[in-house]
């Protein structure tokens, strides 16, 4: 019995951790390239999930099509929010707090537009229409096709994204921008184009993550908001500036939310209603005792900044 619970929680940890990694690398990239702790990232996740839901209800239940649509729609929303809000504000040389506040406002507007539409079309707590199949069954664990969609897709995208950042000219330009914005401009990098592509990528990845998250649970207008603080926890654990660190942080957050929670529940009887507090406690502890994150031993940790 206990073994089943443990294995089951480990499976969930891997699943959730992969999704957090996918969400958190986008957030880390926004924080470094455009220097914005973007709380509207939560709403990109929600929009991705809703796009997936709508496509699965109305068009097709082909997972590739669903994920592609989620990527496209969310990428455009992210680019739109950059052009409508963040870029005009940046031009006025506003402070980080103003940008933070603006990202909250964008998030608020997007979230309640989703609420309005979801309410009107009765799309609260719906499941994405993909037939559930059992692909692996043993005495302790059952793995469905959802697991095999979520985990390899997330890991694959994270790897593809890291390769893009480290091996392509675009990635090099992004890193240059993260390192020194003015210098990047001086040496002739087309800053506007790189920033636009960054927003498209960040939005698209958040959208795919949202769609996969929606496969894993059900879709409602708050799923992004509930995930975002775990994602911030992952990014902060990784020191806010590195990909390997962020990915490690994401799995650590996933592990503590599922396996650690399960262990605490079995051993000291901690109720599952305290589960949402885990990422918050991680954030607070890391910021209090190790604000530079826990992963500076990773060789490429200083990759994005300095």
């Amino acid at each position, binding site marked *: 019995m206990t073994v089943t619970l443990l294995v089951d929680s480990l499976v969930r940890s891997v699943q959730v951790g992969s999704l957090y990694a996918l969400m958190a690398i986008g957030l880390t990239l926004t924080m470094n390239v455009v220097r914005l*702790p973007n709380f509207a990232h939560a709403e990109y996740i929600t929009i991705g999930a809703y796009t997936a839901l709508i496509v699965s209800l109305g068009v097709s239940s082909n997972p590739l099509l669903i994920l592609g649509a989620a990527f496209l729609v969310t990428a455009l929303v992210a680019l739109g929010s950059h052009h409508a*809000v963040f870029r*005009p*504000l940046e031009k*006025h040389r*506003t402070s*980080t*707090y*103003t940008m*933070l*506040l*603006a990202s*909250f*406002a*964008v*998030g*608020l*507007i997007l*979230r*309640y*537009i989703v*609420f*309005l539409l979801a*309410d*009107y079309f009765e799309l609260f707590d719906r499941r994405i229409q993909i037939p559930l199949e059992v692909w692996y069954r043993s005495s302790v664990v059952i793995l469905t096709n959802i697991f095999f969609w979520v985990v390899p897709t997330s890991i694959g995208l994270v790897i593809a994204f890291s390769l893009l950042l480290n091996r392509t000219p675009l990635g090099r330009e992004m890193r240059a921008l993260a390192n020194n914005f003015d210098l990047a401009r001086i040496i002739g990098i087309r800053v506007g184009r790189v920033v636009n592509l960054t927003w498209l990528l960040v939005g698209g990845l958040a959208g795919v993550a949202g769609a996969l998250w929606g496969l894993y649970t059900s879709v409602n207008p708050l799923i992004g908001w509930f995930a975002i*603080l775990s994602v*911030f926890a992952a990014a*902060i654990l990784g020191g806010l500036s590195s990909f390997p660190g962020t990915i490690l942080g994401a799995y650590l957050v996933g592990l503590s939310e599922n396996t650690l929670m399960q262990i605490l529940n079995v051993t000291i009887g901690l*109720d599952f*209603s*305290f589960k*949402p*507090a885990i990422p*918050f*406690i991680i*954030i*607070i502890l890391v*910021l*209090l005792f190790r*604000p530079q994150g826990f992963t500076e031993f990773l060789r490429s940790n200083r990759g994005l900044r300095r």
Partner: protein
Amino acid sequence: MNIDLFATLIALLTFFGIAALMAISLNLEYGVAGIPNFGQALFVSIGAYTTGVTYTRLLPLLAGQEAINPCGATLAPALQLRSEIMRTMPAVGLGNFVLTLLIAAVIGGVVGYAVSYIILRLKQEWYLALVLLVGGETVRIFVRGYQPIVCANNGISGIAGPFAWVGNTQTASILFALLVLAFAGAAYWYSEKLARSPYGRLLKAVRENEQVARSLGKNVARIRAQVMLIGSAIAAISGVLFALNIGFVSTNDYVVTLTLDVWVMVVLGGLGNNRGALLGALLITLMDRATAITAIQLNRLGTDIEFNYFRYILFGVILLLMLRYRPRGLLPETRFTTPAHQYLARSQETGDARSP
């Protein structure tokens, strides 16, 4: 109809007073001292949870009776006991009110001081914003999961204002509105005095350039923590009044959107200007009521759209438009002259620096 209108006005004034307290507290912290407090909901909720605890535990003790567990099976007798005490024993009710305010202000202030003193020494300043935001949610999750504070999910109802003994509900609500406005007035007067004092100029110096202030030998972290102490205490007091006004303490009220509402007030009114904070609080309170009433009316017409969501969209749009086109707010921060400045200006006119 007339009476109805009058009651609406009283309710509006009460809401305005409470909003004004929150806005003044944030204006002091962010507008004057430049500390990004994204944990307004945390400090307001500290006040509200304190109210939940004192009105169920302390109140019976002050009345010389045994406290009854307000949750679960003994919910009804506990509710009856506290409304009985509040109705019949004015001294106990008022005493409990004053004690609640004191306890809430102390807890809020200490939490604000401690958190900011630790975090503000870090390099990345928006960490404080994040920690306070996250702290508010963490406290909320714990209170929601831990029965003894405010009965977890159920909340605590039947918390009457300090004037329940008056008997007449309308008189009681008028008295409470006056009390809230008096608190708001006092907070306005105090923060206006503070902002114009030498200490206030020090705060503005820290806001404008931290390095300069530090190079002049000022302990920036401590100064900011002190402001957080004052601001959080005011926010906690507003939380007590908030809980007493709606007569109910529930963890669902103290979420991030509350924090954002206060930010909208301050940004709309004008950062660093206490009159702006009052104006922002007034406008947002009016808008909040207006959208709520419109939503009810429109939904009564039988449309399928839930108009309550428009409130949040509207507030988000206001915030963005203000940040973009009037970042200094409707009433921008004004210059003010100290007595020394006035003396200098006068003496330059007369040409003699020594003549008064």
